[in-house]
């Protein structure tokens, strides 16, 4: 099958690879570029563990064609920390025990990051709405909601 070249900015670096026409962004990031932050949970757009940002908007990478990301900015949870320093959301997730198995965490952080970028002081309902596409089977969501609200309240949240 003929491969298509695709080039985009991934967490601030220019990256390029070849993909099949029907290849989704999830597989391209994981198997093509070695960024394992987005996970496979369903491949059908129902669980949110594959959430990434494309030009700042949350996207389900399992339902996004890799070729559609040509020339755009793709961000994953791998790029959230500022060097050795945790992003305020990461620190809040740690403080609030907002991860158990950790499998939903990269997608959850990414959805939260998109929310805070647009709305630095969300209400609880807005937080719930923002992560409503992300399934967590471990925590029962409450610690995650508390962590996002805490991160929003902390001074560095606007950096997102």
């Amino acid at each position, binding site marked *: 099958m003929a491969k298509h070249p695709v080039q985009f900015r991934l967490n601030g670096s220019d990256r390029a690879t070849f993909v099949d026409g029907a290849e989704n962004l999830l597989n391209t990031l994981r198997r093509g570029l070695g960024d394992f932050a987005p996970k*496979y949970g369903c491949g059908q757009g129902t669980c949110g563990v594959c959430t990434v940002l494309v030009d700042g908007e949350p996207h389900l990478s399992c339902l996004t064609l890799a070729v559609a990301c040509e020339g755009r900015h793709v961000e994953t949870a791998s790029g959230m920390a500022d060097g050795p320093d945790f992003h305020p959301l990461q*620190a809040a997730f740690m403080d609030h025990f907002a991860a158990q*198995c950790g499998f939903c965490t990269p997608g959850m952080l990414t959805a939260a990051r998109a929310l805070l970028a647009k709305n630095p002081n969300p209400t609880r309902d807005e937080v719930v709405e923002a992560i409503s596409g992300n399934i967590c089977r471990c925590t029962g969501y409450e610690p995650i909601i508390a962590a996002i609200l805490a991160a929003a309240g902390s001074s560095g949240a606007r950096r997102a």
Partner: protein
Amino acid sequence: MLEMRKDLFADERDDNLNEVGKGSQRQDMPGHVTARTRFFDDHAFDGLLHLKVVRSPHAHARIRSIDIAAAARAPGVKRVLRGADVPVNKNTLLSLINFGKDDEPTLAVSKVCYKGEPVVAIIADTEAQAHAARKLVRVEYEPLKPVFDVEEALKPGAPVVNETYPGNYFEYHERFDHQKLRFGDVDAAFARADQVVEARYQMSPIEHAPTETNGTIAAPEHNDRYVVHSCAQGLFFSLGTTAKILNLESNRLHFIGGTVGGGFGGKVDSLTEPLAVLGAMLTGRPVRYVLDREEEMLTGSPRGAERIYVKDGVMRDGRIVARHIRSYFDAGAYTRLSSYAAIKCTAHIPGPYSIPNVSSDVYVAYTNRCPSTAMRGFGVTAVDFAIEVHMDRVAEAVNMDPMELRILNAYRDGDMKAHRRVAKNTALIECVQVAAEKAGWPLSDTARRQTSVASGGAGERGQIPATVIDQRGQIGRPDTRTGGPTQTLPAGTTRIALSKEPVMEGARDGRAAPTQVPRYEPAPRHEPARAQPPAYAPQPAPPAPSYQPASPPPAPPAPAPSPAHTQHGAVRFSSVFGTRRR
């Protein structure tokens, strides 16, 4: 929020706790929030192949033929596997501790016993190619009558689900058709109870639905080993299972894991490890076998559904004087861990209550459903649900507050439990009191004054009652299942633990394997003989020799060649063998 109630049981511990009650950071948390945590699928391999299985569309069918020729020629296909390619194509998980018979193939050969059972595995360059080749496999089936109901499955003439267990029940120690508990005389107690409350509880199978589906990547390593990135919850359990199925020395398997994307019990079955490693062995390439979400939901083993009948004898004042539980654990088509679940269930009966007469019969039944497995307290959770809903029913029947009813019947330190252990560190009363307080639920002064540490073990509460048993002191043998009780063990009699000086009996019932004979010993001498409370010993005790061999019966002539009688070999897994944890 965590609240420490140090006022409760203050004298039972030193109050010098350094960690409990304080927050401390988990060591895996930084990895989780930075996405550096590596789950099994987060490993890059050059030349990675993908494995997909062809599954049975039938719940029960004989396999007439399997034609893989077209699939093997399909683009990108490297190898197609059938049952004959699996070195040891029959296994049962607990065989690693010599418990139960091998009953489940990795790839079905002659028949399929549930919808979704793996029949053929395809290994190809890409997932898409493996999916496409799946459609080219031709399997000819002859549908058989399925059975989906646990009680139907145990009826004579029901379709045989699992040919290893033709009675459709798991055989404990090769001869017992269920787990049985006898303590006191429930029938006599039902007869004199003011009310008998009876109900049926039906649980549903539950899929664990972990966010990470089951999967494995296996690859040839240097030194003739295979590296295995596994989702397994029990990494060494999976290693042992894989080594057995592939007939490999376990030191040729290098398992890496422990980072599980949600398991809840659904990742103890080694659903993917053996085929992934076999694929790596046969192709010499890294092989990735990951269940997609649909496979995970439909064929990943669920919590087994139980059907539970609870029958309580109650006095007008709310005292429960008898409890009988009959339960059927739906194993699905193969044993996996259901045999263990029924033991846990039996060990939990009658719940945290002091009830002087208890009996239970817990069956593991095979049906043409997806095999069930471990899930969060399996075996206990369901019977607890049934018991607690039943407690509410009993409260209603005697017109009593449900919290008060629980406090009245709660076990206390020193009480004799139905499985003949003295209750220790009990705390149900305090839990109910705190729950009532939090919920603003009014309790009577009497209920508020109760405590777990006082009045337990008083009088008959601390005694083993006279107990009705089946023929030969055995319980639950298939051939005596319908026979009435034949003997009564006098009060205070305890069973001699199986692992102590086993007495083996040889060929019986047409079976060659010798089996340990259950034996009992009377109450220890130093205990003052207590008058039998008439409530618990309606029948006079028979003389000792009728239930206890005077001298050990002759040992079996020679150990049979069959490896069947090993149940006392592994004391570590105490709840399986009924031996006491030390």
